[in-house]
């Protein structure tokens, strides 16, 4: 029942207030507690106090989430760079930087030992088992080394103009040059763009280029 706003009832006497408060304060002062509740509370308190007393554990709790997130991001970046053909540990030259590529000397093949020449391949200038030595442009020794001085017999080395020239663009972007420090890739078929390129009716070449993932086990069942 609410009191009308213009007629206020007089306040109860102090004794009445004391009685009300005493009744309120003494009611339910001994709540029902199961036997195990106090023991469980004690165990929880001991565990909480001891965990908080271990500084190493507190430090672990602080840096572990940051380490987890940072490690995950680093692994993701390294994975993307690996798939893209770049080594995360060595710098690479942008493929579309023509000016930088023109000023850059051609990669120099180091002189192979006689026993290594036995395994040399003469097909595309790559010598298996002999990593090409990369001499940065700022190295003054690079200008003094002539290709003829270090050329290996029967090993084809591209000249500077061929190595520095940008590759022709394709419908899938500019291919990576052989001198950009990355993996050597074969040039994409340039006839693809001129030969009726259509996403609605892809030919076999486009189909094969567009699908780079290996088939799943259930798909392999239908392969001949």
């Amino acid at each position, binding site marked *: *029942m*609410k*009191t009308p706003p213009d007629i*206020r*009832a*007089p*306040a*109860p006497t*102090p004794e*009445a*207030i*004391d*009685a*009300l*408060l*005493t*009744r*309120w*304060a*003494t*009611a*339910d*002062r*001994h*709540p029902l*507690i199961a036997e195990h*509740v*106090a*023991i469980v*509370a*004690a*165990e*929880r*308190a*001991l565990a*909480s*106090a001891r965990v*908080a007393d271990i500084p190493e554990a507190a430090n672990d709790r602080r840096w572990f989430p940051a380490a987890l997130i940072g490690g995950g991001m680093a692994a993701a970046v390294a994975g993307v760079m690996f798939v893209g053909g770049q080594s995360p540990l060595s710098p690479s030259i942008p493929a579309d930087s023509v000016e930088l590529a023109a000023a850059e000397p051609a990669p120099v093949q180091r002189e192979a030992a006689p026993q290594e020449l036995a395994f040399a391949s003469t097909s595309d200038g790559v010598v298996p088992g002999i990593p090409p030595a990369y001499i940065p442009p700022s190295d003054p020794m690079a200008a003094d080394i002539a290709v003829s001085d270090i050329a290996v017999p029967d090993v084809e080395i591209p000249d500077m103009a061929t190595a520095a020239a940008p590759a022709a663009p394709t419908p899938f972007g500019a291919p990576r040059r052989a001198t950009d420090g990355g993996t050597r890739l074969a040039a994409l078929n340039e006839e693809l763009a001129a030969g009726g390129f259509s996403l609605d009716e892809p030919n076999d070449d486009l189909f094969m280029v567009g699908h780079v993932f290996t088939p799943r086990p259930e798909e392999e069942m239908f392969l001949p």
Partner: protein
Amino acid sequence: MADVAAGDDGAFRALTQTLYGPALGTAMKVMGSRAEAEDAVQTALVKLWKTADRFDPERAKVSTWFRRIVVNCCIDRKRAMKPVEDIDEIHDAASDEAGPEDATGDMMRDRRVNAAVMELPARQRAAITLFYGDGATMSEIAEALDTTPKAIEGLLARARAELARRLAPLKEELEA
């Protein structure tokens, strides 16, 4: 208590069994909720274990000292909580219910008093709990709340005046 200060788990468990019930009753009065009271007592137990070496048996009993820890934990916890629902809204909601309170006037009155007390600041509610519920002296309450007995007298006077204003509609029921 000396064993607890020395790190004896068994002594701490035995002491907890003795102190837990009264501490929970006090905390329920200050917090207004059993769940919140249990959390506050849990925090107080951790403080008891950590600060057992500071206990001075010549100054107070263990129960008094632990009650002080519990009350302070309750006040700290209450300060961190959102304010409670307005008392007028509580009264309106209760008056709309057609429940047992219509038949039992005492229950209805207790609910109104409880709602009015819960509107008070946590320190005033703690002082009322200790003064009316535990029969603590002004000095004991002042020690529990880290203040002076004179300040506790003022605290209780303000709490009583505020409750008298809020509970004025109950005068007729009290005199009946």
